[in-house]
């Protein structure tokens, strides 16, 4: 039986593990930690232990009923393409292709020097103008294209069935999805069809230099904790990746695995018997979440004091040619729409310039602005966490500062 193991020789009975446990899963008796039946093997206590006395015995972990044996035969990195309502490829698809190219070039620690290829999976309507060549141009070695009248479908089970079937035939090593509403509904379904692991909403991907495994890092606990997750035995390794966290590199087709071979388009068929069980009746578009794509952003927080100061902030954003974002409390107070919210439960933004006014910097908010290149923060409190995420700090009243900046910009 696998379980939490306490090294009695190391444990000093400090009880940090007890405080770290949210489930009452560990107790300290006579200066020695002991796991209880409430332990969920979440690992929090292991991180908290200052003397490395705790570990999880994985002795009886399944070695993946055969999946491990041919893991080395799985080599392609797949990116599932997503299209918008107008049929255009979403930016996150290009971000993932660029990232997949970078991952494919990591051969360290691999005994087999096989080239990993980048393969895009594209499902489009039978009559739609094909976007396959755009995916090739972005750096895909191959596009698996399915043109079928059943796409796009409100029933993600149809697309899931297609991708699972293709993966069973072709054995990708890794499958990446955008952590969009579609990707986060689609990927789990594929994970159970393939009986493999899936890491949600990753903000960082890298290759473990020793094992060649995909290291998938994601926020948990509302962004208060980051976890790095691996899927050692089962294939494919699957992750949904938050839009806006990876840059689209310029001409990534130039970095293609073998320059001699141009990308190929392979047409694949969808199971003729599949019938969608979810039907779209109506669609109410929301004002596109433009702040996620904004190059310049003014973000305001509770520090602006009152709702009447919003017009001042809007004027400033206008003068700075920037979009306006805000923190969650402002949305909850009804001052601005949800579409403006930056953070863990709002939009992830990646502007070149971000001016933050009256934002204290709750970690959930900071989780959504990690992609910003230059951050200028104004806050009265010199110890506000926002300054830990800023490149330039101004300690002072954000209203007075905004008025002065507006005055200068107008003159």
């Amino acid at each position: 039986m696998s379980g939490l193991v306490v090294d009695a020789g190391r444990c000093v009975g400090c009880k940090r593990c007890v405080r770290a446990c949210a489930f009452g899963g560990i107790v300290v008796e006579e200066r020695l930690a002991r796991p209880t039946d409430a332990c969920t093997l979440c690992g929090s206590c292991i991180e908290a232990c200052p003397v490395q006395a705790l570990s999880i015995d994985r002795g009886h972990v399944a070695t993946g009923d055969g999946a491990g044996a041919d893991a080395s035969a799985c080599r392609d990195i797949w990116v599932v393409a997503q299209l918008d309502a107008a049929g255009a490829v979403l930016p996150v698809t290009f971000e993932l292709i660029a990232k997949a190219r970078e991952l494919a070039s990591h051969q360290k620690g691999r005994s087999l020097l096989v080239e990993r290829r980048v393969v895009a999976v594209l499902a489009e309507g039978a009559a739609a103008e094909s976007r396959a060549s755009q995916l090739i141009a972005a750096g895909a070695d191959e596009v698996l294209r399915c043109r079928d009248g059943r796409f796009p479908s409100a029933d993600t089970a149809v697309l899931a069935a297609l991708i699972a079937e293709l993966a069973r035939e072709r054995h990708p090593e890794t499958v990446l999805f955008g952590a969009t509403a579609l990707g986060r509904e689609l990927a789990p379904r594929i994970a159970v069809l393939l009986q493999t692991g899936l890491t949600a909403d990753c903000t960082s991907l890298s290759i473990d230099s020793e094992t060649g495994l995909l290291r998938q890092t994601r926020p948990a606990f509302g962004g208060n904790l980051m976890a790095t997750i691996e899927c050692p035995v089962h294939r494919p390794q699957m992750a949904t990746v938050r839009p806006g966290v990876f840059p689209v590199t310029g001409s990534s087709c130039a970095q293609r695995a073998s320059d001699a071979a141009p990308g190929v388009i392979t047409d694949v068929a969808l199971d003729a018997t599949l019938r969608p069980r979810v039907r779209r009746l109506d669609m109410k578009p929301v004002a596109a979440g433009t702040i996620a794509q904004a190059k310049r952003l003014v973000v305001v927080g509770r520090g602006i004091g009152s709702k009447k100061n919003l017009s001042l902030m809007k004027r400033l954003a206008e003068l700075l040619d920037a979009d306006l974002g805000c923190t969650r409390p402002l949305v909850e107070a009804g001052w601005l729409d949800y579409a403006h919210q930056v953070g863990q439960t709002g939009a992830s933004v990646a502007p070149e310039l971000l001016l933050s006014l009256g934002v204290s910097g709750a970690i959930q908010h900071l989780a959504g602005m990690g992609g910003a290149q230059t951050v200028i923060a104004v806050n009265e409190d010199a110890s506000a966490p926002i300054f830990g995420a800023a490149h330039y700090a101004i300690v002072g009243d954000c209203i007075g500062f905004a008025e002065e900046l507006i005055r200068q910009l107008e003159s």
Partner: protein
Amino acid sequence: MMHIVVCVKAVPGSTEVRMDPVTHTIVRDGGAAVVNPFDAAALEVALRIKEALAAEGSTCRVSALSMGIPATEVLLRDCIARGADDALLLSDRAFAGADTLATSYALSRGLRELGIGDGDAPDPWLIICGKMAVDGDTAQIGPELAGLLDVPCVTDVRSFAGEGLSPGREYSPERMRVRHGVDEGIETVEVQLPAVITVSKDIVQPRMPSIAGVLAARAAVVEVRGAADVGADTARTGLAGSPTQVVRSFVPERSGACETLTGTLAEQAACVAELWGGGVR
């Protein structure tokens, strides 16, 4: 009779995490466990469907299902106090350490125990999950359960089609109409039953338990089952059945390289105007 199963997760009362500045270790002051707020909303949706059906003269059974430590029984009893008809807790050392794949498998065995998923259940059924749990934020259990049961899934349901939450009018044993969040906006769909839906936290305000409910819950039996009781293959549960492993967890760090702009207000504003005009640093 319609059967609705609500999947419930016990989560720490607070998601606060901080780094001990001396030891650089994680201090997670979890406090007492509570029902994941999204799941509390899911239960409320189920109860409103039950009430709407009752108003039309139809009956509906609402079950609460959870996988967790034995103490989770208290939270399931609270679900009964709020109006669930029965509750099942899957609790076993063999379930511990589960990732979402192993959790969804265990829950699927629990659903079987409740009479759902053996292919020819005569009555219509619906599974309602919270869109995500506040501690894990994965939002994967709903779609994974739907995949295991081979039924459609609609995630992030914001409201029932029709006026407000009026499931009675928008629901029939064959299909239901809901509005849910998609990438382009809010989509109204018709989904065939049986199905899995996941709901946002704001869809409805969960009710408080009634006095009668609390009294009834005191006498109610929360069924507790282990892996063997529900015929679960322990190679597919808990740590053993989890393809993913957490290899490291850490409190996110921020770069300390922050330059403070001093001087008069006018000088500070001029400096920002220049940064803004001169592009990135």
